[in-house]
């Protein structure tokens, strides 16, 4: 479709205004984090602070009761990195098994995987809590990390879709050359599914970084809190009035997500388009 020049100008003006409207709240959050405390709400419509107030970042970063945001960020990184490694590695193995080997019960396990993907998590949240309590895992990172080492249905599905585009002749050729199935996975398939693994890793990063309900349930001492849970503390009790600090830390918590988005945009768009993954 091609447009005449006046039409094109009108198109860009209208779509541009709508795009600005969409990201205005995010810009407002970032701008408010740089405003002096008394200005945040008195001139809320404005994106421009009268002077740049970096003190918000200092006061926010101090955290709560002696635990600073460096601890919260460190906790988030530990949880995110370990659970992402586990999720991607195990999902790749399972995806290969379901897509490229024939075994008894394969159809059943594929169906089980799709069913798990659709299962509302609320159904397992109570019994999982009971189970992890019996394991003695409460107040530790284990409930937030260990389950991810057993494959994530969304990633298994995504990687399977990708493996299916690799011609089966490659497997056959490797087999003739004396490769076992393990060799086929390691030497043939693994080097070719890099993009699917990256896409899975990015989504895992987002979901673990944003996860709120699991840390809320399993962690109770602030020195173990990830950033998502720590932000909630700004809404509690005595810290209630540090608006600037709250806006500053909220902005800071979004920074890694936005940076990853701009670096890996291509993978994200392809990942969503091919599987309908929710980002």
């Amino acid at each position: 479709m091609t447009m005449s020049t006046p039409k094109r100008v009108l198109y860009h003006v209208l779509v541009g205004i709508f795009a600005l409207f969409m990201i205005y709240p995010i810009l407002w959050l970032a701008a408010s984090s740089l405003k002096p405390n008394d200005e945040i709400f008195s001139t809320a419509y404005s994106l421009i602070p009268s002077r740049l107030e970096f003190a918000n970042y200092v006061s926010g970063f101090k955290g709560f009761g002696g635990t600073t945001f460096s601890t919260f960020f460190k906790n988030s990184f530990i949880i995110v990195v370990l659970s992402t490694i586990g999720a991607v590695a195990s999902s790749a193995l399972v995806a290969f098994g379901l897509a490229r080997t024939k075994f008894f019960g394969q159809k059943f396990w594929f169906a089980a995987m799709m069913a798990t993907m659709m299962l509302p998590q609320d159904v397992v949240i109570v019994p999982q809590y009971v189970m992890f309590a019996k394991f003695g895992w409460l107040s530790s990172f284990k409930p937030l990390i260990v389950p991810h080492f057993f494959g994530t249905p969304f990633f298994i599905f995504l990687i399977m879709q990708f493996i299916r585009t690799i011609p089966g002749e490659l497997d056959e050729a490797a087999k003739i050359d004396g490769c076992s199935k393990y060799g086929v996975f390691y030497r043939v398939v693994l080097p070719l599914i890099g993009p699917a693994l990256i896409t899975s890793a990015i989504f895992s990063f987002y979901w673990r970084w944003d996860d709120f309900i699991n840390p809320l349930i399993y962690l109770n001492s602030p020195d173990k809190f990830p950033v998502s849970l720590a932000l909630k503390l700004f809404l509690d009790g005595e810290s209630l009035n540090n608006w600037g600090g709250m806006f500053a830390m909220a902005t800071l918590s979004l920074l890694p997500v936005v940076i990853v988005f701009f670096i890996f945009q291509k993978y994200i768009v392809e990942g969503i388009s091919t599987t309908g993954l929710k980002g």
Partner: protein
Amino acid sequence: MKRLRDNEHLTGYVFTSPFVLGFLIFTLYPVLSSLYYSFTDYNLMEAPNWLGLDNYKRMFMEDDKIGKSFQVTFTYVLASVPLRLIFALFVAMILNVATKAVGLYRSAFYLPSLIGGSVAVSIMWQQIFGDQGLVNSFLNLIGIHASTSWIGNPSTALWTLIALSTWQFGSSMIIFLAGLKNIPKDYYEAAGVDGANAVRRFFNITLPMLSPIILFNLTLQTISAFMTFTPAYIISRGEGGPLDQTLLYSLYLYRKAFSHFEMGYASALAWVMLLIVGFLTLLIFKSSTRWVHYETKGD
């Protein structure tokens, strides 16, 4: 060793073993024990006592909060899912033109759905709709006096959550964009020759061709809308207020399980939710034979 390697059944299970184990331990066993707890008075401290159907009776006969929670949740799902999909389709069609700036616009529209589930955005939303927030500040600027919090007002609180969900139409939009790119151009050209106007082209070509993608999105978005937790928790500070107007079902379940430690009752709540979501999914799929158009070879 050679024989073992050649046994493909074994190889298959070696590769899928993480999921097989994970499914048994972290999904199947919890789902079944949740069903068992739902018939008991389990409270985490004492051994569960069998109650039969009492928890379910209590839900429908005695619990007066649950009616409110159902009403709020259904309003939320029935408003936010269609709004999200309509916006997604509308913006995808607008962006489906050949212009260099599309990538930039696409990022701008997608960014909200990327960060939308975070605590930071829920906090941001709470401040935007607060009594001195961004929305009221703009209204006052154009001369409309506004000083009440949209979040504290029982008649608007839920709609701020629906607005937050609609704001995140970006991921569906990207899926629709990919779908639109796959519709052959000559379909539209042929329709143009036949004199079909834009509205008819939309209803006769675009919508039927996208219907499988719409079905997929509708299903997943409905399930995830039912499970919305973080924004309701943050905006209402974990209470579901004002007047239980933001007491989404997940939040109610969370409060029963982890504030009151009524694990048995919370499990019954979870199972009713599973049945409702399962029923709705089935309904969407059953009805889909009427409105989803699958392209067959040679069509």
